[in-house]
Every structure is written in structure tokens, then in C-alpha cells.
């Protein structure tokens, strides 16, 4: 397919007779002719006999020097004819030119098989919904990378894989740092992403007692321990242990205590307080 060169108001005549096989024609005037025709392009000239105005030939000029054209004869569905001096030469639009333009179908939506020659220039986007050219995106990211003043807002994370804003960290890993308390730690090795440590102290007890933890472990109790907290009353020394029956649960544990008189005098009827600690997630 030819690439066309266009010139308005070319309206002249042949300077001399032209045979039906000549590949060079000379016009009577250079008025409105281009000074050159780029390689691979053509200027369309229509020839028309002045005697009857019924004979036409379309020629494609591939080169031009002054008023002399190098031409391809019989183009655009016409045949090469012999012409006389003063026959008409002009440059109106032709069907071949129009067809070369291509046209969109009536229902075209610019989707599907439309293709574009590379590169297609796109102006910088200035609003949401605009096309973004890669050069602009690259420049924007370079600016972000080079600036220490950029602040990115991150929404509150709702799942383990989401980014967490620094402001959310304290609420994600709360604690109650009291005598009976807990601390939730981040832990990437935990199936839940966190680890919980809890602790407490019992009131003075005699025998067994079930102690609810300050907060129930959602998933797993890993470890539980206890130790005597204070001097016993009603005896000289005591012991406390985690009960196996009932076994410790995610919510509570049962502890048993015993108080003894001066060794080896055996069990005494006393009471004792104890510390406990539990770990899980």
C-alpha cells in the first residue's frame, strides 16, 4: 500500500505529449507541486483529455524534479493512455487514496483487534481514568524512591498477610501489665501470628482451686507452671502443683496445694498462696 503525499490546488496541463508507456511526464507549471516526494511515497496526479473530458488516467508520481515527474502509469483501476500536450493534469482525491485511509466500522468501539504502531505517544495523565504512560509512571516512582518525605497511608490490617500501620501495632499486641495479666506478642512462628503469656497470683487457699486465666487462649495452651508465693499459714512449708484432673484447659487450670508442719511432722492444716504462669497462642 502506498503512502500518499498531498498537495492542494494542483491544476495544470501536460507540457508535451506522453505515450502510454512513458514513465516521465512534464507539466506546464510547478504551481502547488511539492518540491520533493519522500522515498516510498507517491503524489497522485489525474490526467484528463481536454478534447472530450471523457478519458482519465491516474498516475502515481514517485519522484519530482521541478515540473517533471517520475510516474507509475495506470493506477487506481485506470489504464495507461497516450496523452497530448495541454491535456489536463490535476490532483483531486481518488478512491485509492480514500481506501488507503481505512475506515472504522459503524459499531467500532476500539476494542478487540485494533492494533497501533509502536510507539504510541500518550500525554501525562492528570486525572483518574486517564491513560498513564510508562515514562510518567517511571518518573513518579523515581521521585517517590528518592524522597524521604513521602508518607503512605495504610489501612488497618484485617488479615495476617496485610500490611499493618505503625499506629495499629499497640492495639494488635495489647497487654494487661497487672498482678493477674497477659501480654500478646507478635510471633511469625505461631499459626496465629502471635504468642500469649499470662500470669497471676492466687488468693490464700487450702487444698485445690480452679483459676481462670485473665484471658482465654484462643488456640493452644503450651505450658503452665506454678510456685509458692508466700509464707504459709498453719504450717512451716508448702507445695503447689498443677492438677492433672481436671486437666488444664484453654480457659483455666486447677491447682492443688499442701502445707506441712516442721519436717518431718507431716501434713498440717494450713493455707498457701501461689504464683502461676501460662503460655500459648
Amino acid at each position, binding site marked *: 500500500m502506498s503512502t500518499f503525499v498531498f498537495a492542494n490546488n494542483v491544476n495544470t496541463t501536460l507540457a508535451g505529449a506522453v505515450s502510454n508507456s512513458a514513465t516521465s511526464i512534464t507539466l506546464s507549471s510547478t504551481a502547488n507541486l511539492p518540491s520533493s516526494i519522500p522515498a516510498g511515497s507517491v503524489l497522485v496526479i489525474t490526467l484528463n483529455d481536454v478534447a472530450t473530458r471523457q478519458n482519465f488516467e491516474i498516475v502515481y508520481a514517485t519522484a519530482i524534479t521541478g515540473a517533471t515527474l517520475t510516474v507509475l502509469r495506470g493506477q487506481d483501476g485506470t489504464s495507461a493512455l497516450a496523452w497530448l500536450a495541454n491535456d489536463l493534469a490535476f490532483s483531486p482525491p481518488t478512491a485509492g487514496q480514500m481506501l488507503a485511509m481505512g475506515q472504522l466500522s459503524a459499531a467500532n468501539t476500539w476494542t478487540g483487534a485494533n492494533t497501533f504502531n509502536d510507539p504510541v505517544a500518550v500525554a501525562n495523565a492528570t486525572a483518574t481514568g486517564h491513560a498513564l504512560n510508562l515514562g510518567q509512571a517511571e518518573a513518579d516512582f523515581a521521585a517517590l524512591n528518592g524522597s524521604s518525605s513521602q508518607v503512605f497511608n495504610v489501612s488497618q490490617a484485617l488479615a495476617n498477610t496485610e500490611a499493618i500501620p505503625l499506629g495499629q501495632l499497640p492495639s494488635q499486641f495489647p497487654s494487661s501489665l497487672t498482678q493477674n495479666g497477659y501480654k500478646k506478642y507478635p510471633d511469625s512462628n505461631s499459626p496465629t501470628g502471635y504468642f500469649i503469656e499470662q500470669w497471676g497470683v492466687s*488468693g490464700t487457699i487450702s487444698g485445690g482451686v480452679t483459676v481462670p486465666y*485473665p484471658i482465654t487462649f484462643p488456640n493452644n495452651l503450651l505450658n503452665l507452671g506454678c510456685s509458692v508465693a508466700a509464707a504459709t499459714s498453719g504450717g512451716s512449708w508448702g507445695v503447689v502443683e498443677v492438677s492433672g484432673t481436671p486437666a488444664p484447659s484453654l480457659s483455666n487450670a486447677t491447682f492443688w496445694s499442701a502445707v506441712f508442719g516442721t519436717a518431718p511432722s507431716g501434713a498440717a492444716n494450713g493455707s498457701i498462696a501461689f504464683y502461676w504462669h501460662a503460655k500459648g497462642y
Partner: protein
Amino acid sequence: MPRYAQYDSASPSPAPVTGWYDTDILAYPNLPPASDLIEVDASNWALHFNSPGGWTVEDGKLIPPEFA
């Protein structure tokens, strides 16, 4: 807001509290049935850290231990 104390609703009243839940900060895959939970307000939640044990549920009310 949703903080709960757990008790055995089938037990004679007053039923001892056997667990404490804060669903704001922890996700529980196996929360007890609603019938065995009673909501805990902010003041009682703060109070239960003094003594997690000794609490009871009586007539639908959460009763702190005397020493809490």
C-alpha cells in the same frame, strides 16, 4: 466491646466463671455457646484482672468476688 465471661449455664446458680474472652483482640475459632457466655462491661473487665477467679453468674448477672 464484645468481652465475655464463661460459665456453665446448666450448673446450679451461682455458677462459677471459668473463662474470660476478649473478642476484640483475639479471634476465637471455638467460642463457647452464647448460652454459656455473659457480656462483660469495661469496668468489670478491668476489675477481673485483680482476681480472675472467684467470679460467679447469678440470675443472669456477673458477680465479682468480695475481694476483687
